[in-house]
């Protein structure tokens, strides 16, 4: 199993056309409270649903100081990738030296000069990033089968979410062993007495 089929269902009483953001956090490094908005579900009205795929694997890419982006390379646990200067220019390649931890993926800046950004993607969307890696430095990534989900406004996919936004998102959904499931949102509604948004799993297939 390399992906989980998820289906977001809006059974809330929301009247603000709220957006729902889904993201992951890199557990290999302490990034503080920063994360990337991996998926933003917009205009999903009451009783609408929004199916999507959540890959368990991720891809890595790097960008150099010249603004070049390398192709996405699928990363497996324990692998490491080196950004090197080849005869054609800067390229990202699988390293013969594995990552320090078998559960982590590393992206190393092996250029003589120039910082790089290391990026992770799932389903082609930016999932995590570490910027300004100087030559000799590396980024370490590890993601657990867990997503964070919450209601936000004015966030776009691929954007960095700061601690103020993340502090509003307090629902964690653990997806260990799941093949497919519905994520059902309830709560919300007009007025100050309306309940908070809540998320539950239904129709779970393992």
């Amino acid at each position, binding site marked *: 199993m390399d992906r989980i089929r998820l289906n977001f269902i809006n059974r809330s009483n929301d009247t603000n056309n709220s957006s729902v953001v889904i993201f992951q*956090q890199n*557990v290999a490094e*302490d990034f503080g409270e920063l994360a990337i908005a991996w998926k933003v579900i917009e205009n999903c009205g009451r009783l609408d649903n929004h199916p999507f795929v959540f890959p368990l694997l991720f891809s890595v890419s790097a960008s150099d100081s010249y603004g070049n982006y390398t192709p996405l390379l699928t990363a497996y646990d324990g692998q490491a990738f080196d950004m090197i200067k080849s005869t054609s220019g800067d390229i990202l390649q699988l390293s013969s030296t594995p990552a320090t931890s078998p559960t982590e993926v590393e992206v190393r800046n092996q250029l003589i000069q120039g910082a790089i950004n290391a990026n992770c993607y799932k389903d082609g969307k930016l999932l995590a990033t570490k910027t300004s890696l100087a030559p000799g430095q590396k980024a370490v990534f590890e993601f*657990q089968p*867990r997503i*964070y989900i919450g209601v936000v406004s004015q966030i776009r996919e691929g954007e960095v979410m700061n601690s103020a936004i993340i*502090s509003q998102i*307090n*629902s*964690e*959904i*653990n*997806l*260990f*062993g*799941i093949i497919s499931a519905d994520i059902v949102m309830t709560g919300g509604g007009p007025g100050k007495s309306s*309940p908070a948004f*809540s*998320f*539950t*799993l239904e129709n*779970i297939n*393992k």
Partner: protein
Amino acid sequence: MENIEESTWYTGDWRPDGNNPQAPYNGLKIVATANYSEKTNPPTARKLVSVDLEVVDYTYNPNGVSSSLQLTKSAVWYAIPIPQDTTVAPPEPNMQFTVVGVGGNPLGHIRLDVTPVGSFVNIQFSYGPTSRKREEIGYIMRFPNQDDTIQVEG
């Protein structure tokens, strides 16, 4: 009954490099131990009998506040009990244990879902400081329904 497998799960805010200097000191962890039936003679596969759980909350106590429960039935929600604070007399519910239910339920819940591909631990609770309760739902670990290791005596 014999303990064969142990597994530990941590909340997303868990700091593996150590506690914070002030509350919330850390997140929460769940240590699960699977209990299988006794060895038999002649040896047969041992079936999963129960799962012992220890829910340890580090929100307000850097040493953790523990609550224990045992799951013996499939597809039944078990309440996570609020542990007693035995440092006061008479003992009273430990207010440093922050695990409660979701949707206004006073207690968090855990259950075991037995499926053909294994037995999954399913959680549904919130925890953390009152100012920032975090909800945790879903499946966190799996145990084999039976231990197929053939035990050779002697």
